[in-house]
């Protein structure tokens, strides 16, 4: 068997077998009982040479409509944003991407320092004291926040707004089942969490109140009121936030959030059909020792030189086993690096400018659609997404849009029964005025 990834030659094998003292490789497998031995060959596709495989998979990829070819107005948790070229160049440095978790700090300072910087940037954006090194994604981070809240308050009920991403709520329910946590959904009104319902549902058994900011409909949730409701009953106040929006929105930390989670996908991470993205998890100092996953901390070596290590590991599964704060081991380190590079490139000014452009362009799109006679469903202020009502199925309109080179918005009727024929439209800084106008015109036409 000759293969470019397999360097052993026939003479290597012979020498090695001699050193071991066996006559064939097969002998090394003799401890596998006859009854469970797999005999024969896997029934798999035969190996393909590099150029042929590249051609085949490129053709497969070409079957998919992608957002480099199409102008995308689809968001719903995954967005088409400016990804500085430098991001991919940095994460393609194989000292980063071919490394494991930095367990040996002396030869992992690069990764550790990059993560320390990531933690700092997430703290800056969210207004929180402590951020971890990443989670799988925003949805599982939210579920972990609920579990942390239940553990911290010793209460077994969480309230989650219906305006939180439906798939994140699905994930939350799955985790909650494992932990015996009751999940109660708080209805919405005018596109935001209904405060009256929230106030009547929250009580001394509530571990957490969870909202999204901006919420799934793009609406800026009234965090100040939600905070009062949560803390009034001693519940944790958990916010899932789009970190790019925090370039222009007041950060959840300012409103007294206990835990802020979300996904850093807007920072230089491609949509890649839903993953891998990059969950983040930020807390107040009080909860520092309850955080799931890895934390990087600053310290010194024997000569007093600054260095970085994985720290507070007593929380983690490899030390605490079944008493760990979470079972997470692998995280999304490389994507945290990508997000760091993107946040660095945007910097203090760019993150504001980018967020501002999202706000402005989405607002412009809203007005353009109104002019075409399309209903804006919620009048509440929004960031870069909003909801429109059509008079025919979203699917049909999207099929028409596709012909014009446009990927249309998300069909809300798939999840919210009362929002049949409603489309969630995302307008990022990537959409030009022309694209927005074309979109508005096309939607207006097919809306008739």
């Amino acid at each position, binding site marked *: 068997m000759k293969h470019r990834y397999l360097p052993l030659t026939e003479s290597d094998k012979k020498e090695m077998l001699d050193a071991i003292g066996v006559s064939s490789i097969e002998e090394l497998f003799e401890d596998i009982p006859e009854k469970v031995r797999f005999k024969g060959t896997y029934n798999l596709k035969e190996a393909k040479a590099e150029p042929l495989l590249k051609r085949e998979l490129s053709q497969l990829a070409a079957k998919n409509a992608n957002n480099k070819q199409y102008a995308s107005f689809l968001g719903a948790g995954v967005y088409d944003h400016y990804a500085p070229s430098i991001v991919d160049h940095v994460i393609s440095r194989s000292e980063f991407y071919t490394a494991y978790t930095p367990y040996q700090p002396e030869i992992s300072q690069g990764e550790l320092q990059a993560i320390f910087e990531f933690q700092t940037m997430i703290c800056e954006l969210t207004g929180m004291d402590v951020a971890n090194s990443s989670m799988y994604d925003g949805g599982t981070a939210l579920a972990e926040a609920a579990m942390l809240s239940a553990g911290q308050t010793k209460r077994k009920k969480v309230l989650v707004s219906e305006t939180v991403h439906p798939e994140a709520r699905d994930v939350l329910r799955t985790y909650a089942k494992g932990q015996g946590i009751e999940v109660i959904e708080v209805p919405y009104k005018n596109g935001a969490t209904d405060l009256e319902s929230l106030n009547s549902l929250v009580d001394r058994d509530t571990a957490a109140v969870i909202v999204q900011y901006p919420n799934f409909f793009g609406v800026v949730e009234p965090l100040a009121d939600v905070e009062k409701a949560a803390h009034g009953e001693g519940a944790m106040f958990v916010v899932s936030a789009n970190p790019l929006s925090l370039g222009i929105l007041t950060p959840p930390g300012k409103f007294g959030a206990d835990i802020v989670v979300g996904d850093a996908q807007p920072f230089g991470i491609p949509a890649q059909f839903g993953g891998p993205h990059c969950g983040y998890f930020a807390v107040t100092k009080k909860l520092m020792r309850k955080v799931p996953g890895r934390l990087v901390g600053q310290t010194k070596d024997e000569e007093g030189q600054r260095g970085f290590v994985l720290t507070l590991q007593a929380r*983690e599964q490899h030390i605490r086993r079944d008493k760990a704060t979470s079972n997470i081991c692998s995280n999304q380190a490389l994507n945290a690096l990508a997000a760091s590079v993107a946040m660095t490139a945007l910097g203090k000014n760019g993150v504001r400018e980018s967020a501002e452009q999202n706000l402005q362009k989405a607002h412009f799109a809203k007005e353009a659609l109104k002019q075409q006679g399309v209903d804006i469903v919620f009048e509440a202020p929004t960031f870069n997404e909003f909801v429109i009502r059509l008079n025919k199925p979203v699917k049909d309109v999207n099929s028409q849009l596709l012909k014009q080179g446009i990927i249309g918005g998300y069909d809300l009727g798939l999840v919210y029964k009362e929002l049949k024929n409603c489309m969630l439209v995302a307008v990022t800084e990537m959409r030009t005025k022309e694209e927005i106008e074309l979109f508005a015109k096309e939607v207006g036409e097919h809306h008739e």
Partner: protein
Amino acid sequence: MSKKDQKLIFEMSQPGRIGYSLPELDVPRKDAAELLPDGYVREEAPELPEVSELDIMRHYTALSKRNHGVDSGFYPLGSCTMKYNPKINEDIARLDGLAHIHPLQQEETVQGALELMYDLQEHLKEITGMDEVTLQPAAGAHGEWTGLMMIRAFHEANGDFNRTKVIVPDSAHGTNPASAAVAGFETVTVKSGEDGLVDLEDLKRVVDETTAALMLTNPNTLGLFEENILEMAEIIHGVGGKLYYDGANLNAVMSKARPGDMGFDVVHLNLHKTFTGPHGGGGPGSGPVGVKADLMPFLPKPVLVKKDGMYQFDNERPQSIGRVKPFYGNFGINVRAYTYIRSMGPDGLKAVTEYAVLNANYMMRRLAPYFDLPYNRHSKHEFVLSGRRQKKLGVRTLDIAKRLLDFGYHPPTIYFPLNVEECMMIEPTETESKETLDAFIEAMIQIAKEAEETPEVVQEAPHTTVIGRLDETLAARKPVLRYEKEQ
């Protein structure tokens, strides 16, 4: 590597410098305060760095030079399968039609992506001998928890609510008991015997009608094949429990034995280990889960199906445990794994396992004269040594690991599994040449000699890295977890 502090990116920041290029806003600009509610417009800008593009590139290039990856040198980190990460995988994963597609696009616009996922599932079913596979879990631990939630749902569907315990061997990965806890189970430990294998008598003692599952990796973390696997399956199934396969060590048995044929009911795989998704400095990974037919109704939603020549997601799964992750898993990593499987083919995967095991046994036999070998029998893809002998000379396994850094190697996994004193767990993988193994062996032999003759050289290692041993106690006692600008 030079002993020099690398500034934090924040310390390089200069007001007014930028590293981005956004087009001018081409729509009318309104005052943000008009568009947003009172009190919701950010007043203080986040303190992100202000640096030029070259500053950024130099910073991260400098950081990368302070990092060791598989491409930098040998990385025999046991149970982590640090094999070569093929470059074609990276190219394929970056194709526009795979990298830049949205998970909520209409199904007819992503048939290529769905076809890839479906075919990957089919390949993984064959490799593991299971009946169905989900690609949704994001990593190994996430797969463990997903599998356990399915086992829980299975028992509950049978009206069996008293199965509260999950059994794990004392040599198990730490994620096993942690995942069991998150799935709401209590963990019971089963002991290993003198031979390093699960003690069957102890297993019989701990199982009963409250047993939900036994979690096992085979070969185990000592690199030994659990040869009593069929008896263990019988014991667990005999009390109505399920057998769970931790696929972290699958590299050892591909084409030799399939979990499905060993009696396992649920399997998770670490595509970032056996199937070359890079480790990325700690992730992202991918942790697909395979199940036998009786667990299929409980798979996470949605399930990918092929109907009338079209690939589509099936959400009508009343017994499903629900979603474990938004969207469909770490697709980008799954693309890499698929590319790898297609690069290897069935004969290639068989050779992978054979050479991985050959490499491990060769190293084990050559090192055996110099270190204690706790289990003197053929290993699989990895093996453990004990540093007991060196410890008596005042040299700990930690010192040996640090000394290896001076030779340009990443050390083995140390102090794990927990049931071996001063443990070193070595996994060379199949992508390493004999010359590389020989050079590492020579380094280990030299360190063993140093332990006898000049122990301080080992005790004070590393001598050549950019930084010395770091004060971990200080890091934990006075946590500094973010940069703060000096006032």
